[in-house]
């Protein structure tokens, strides 16, 4: 065992192709495909809802779109910065928290949203909900010392769907 931080896990490496093609199909279809995703081959349920988020590189300013699992809880949309259980935060998380707002897309509808990080009992409740939605999160958390962040998105305005 090495003490070096794991910046990309085996899970992430193995799923890179699937994740990339899923994101591309979602984006290029304008959200008609990709929203509900069968994750049984990844250890999840055959029914998992996914969204697209748009972020901008905090150093480069470069626009990036990625697909993530989400849960809908009390009118807010939860996403998990798991990075497959790596010891570092995913780039999208660092980019997201550098700005007060972002755009996300669910199926064919996109929204401008604010975000917050739930704390304490609320954090635990959302975490449990997200593990039920995607059970591999439990193993991801067990595999790292990092506290895996959860973000709650609060949409406030409909906008045009994301373009590739």
């Amino acid at each position: 065992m090495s003490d070096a931080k794991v910046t990309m896990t085996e899970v992430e490496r193995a799923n890179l192709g699937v994740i990339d093609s899923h994101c591309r199909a979602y984006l290029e279809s304008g959200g008609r495909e990709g929203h509900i995703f069968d994750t049984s081959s990844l250890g999840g349920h055959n029914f998992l809802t996914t969204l697209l988020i748009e972020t901008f590189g905090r150093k480069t300013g470069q626009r990036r779109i990625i697909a993530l699992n989400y849960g809908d809880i009390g009118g807010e949309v939860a996403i998990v910065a798991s990075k497959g259980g790596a010891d570092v935060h995913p780039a999208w998380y660092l980019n997201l928290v550098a700005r007060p707002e972002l755009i996300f897309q669910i199926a064919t509808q996109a929204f401008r949203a604010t975000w917050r990080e739930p704390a304490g009992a609320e954090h635990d409740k959302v975490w449990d909900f997200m593990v039920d939605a995607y059970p591999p999160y439990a193993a991801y958390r067990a595999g790292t010392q990092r506290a895996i962040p959860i973000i709650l998105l609060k949409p406030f305005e409909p906008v045009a769907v994301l373009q590739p």
Partner: protein
Amino acid sequence: MSDDKVTMTEVERATLEFVASHRATYIASEGREGHVLDYRHLGGHRFTTCLLLETVGRKSGERRITPLIYGDTGGEVVIVASKGGADVHPGWYFNIQSMDEVTFQIGGQAFRATWREPEGAERQRIWDFMADLYPPYRDYQAATGRKIPIVCFAPGDETERFRA
């Protein structure tokens, strides 16, 4: 106050036209419109997700498509037979009693599914989750002596979208 059963509530009556146009738009747009709605005017959230449920009339044999609020938890899709707090169950709930499988559509994706009614502590947990998604459910339950049923769908194969 009368002892008569309320078979249609004021809320239902007031939203009849809206429900009809919601259904028509959802189907005609192939799920591009109607999935995420703003229900603040009804006491709900800015972000509320809706599906289409297809049932077959138990007496008429007629195919019926009903738009309903849904939540998803642990890989299952949840709907609530609230009928706006009426004292009778909605037609779709009676109809599914004689159906082993149903079809529902979320956005542009439709699925065959089996269904079940959660009980005990699980039912309470799912009720709380759904009431957080759509707070008026709590008022609906308070308005009727009927115990409002909750139905969970376990999605199976993806199938063709609904057509008008």
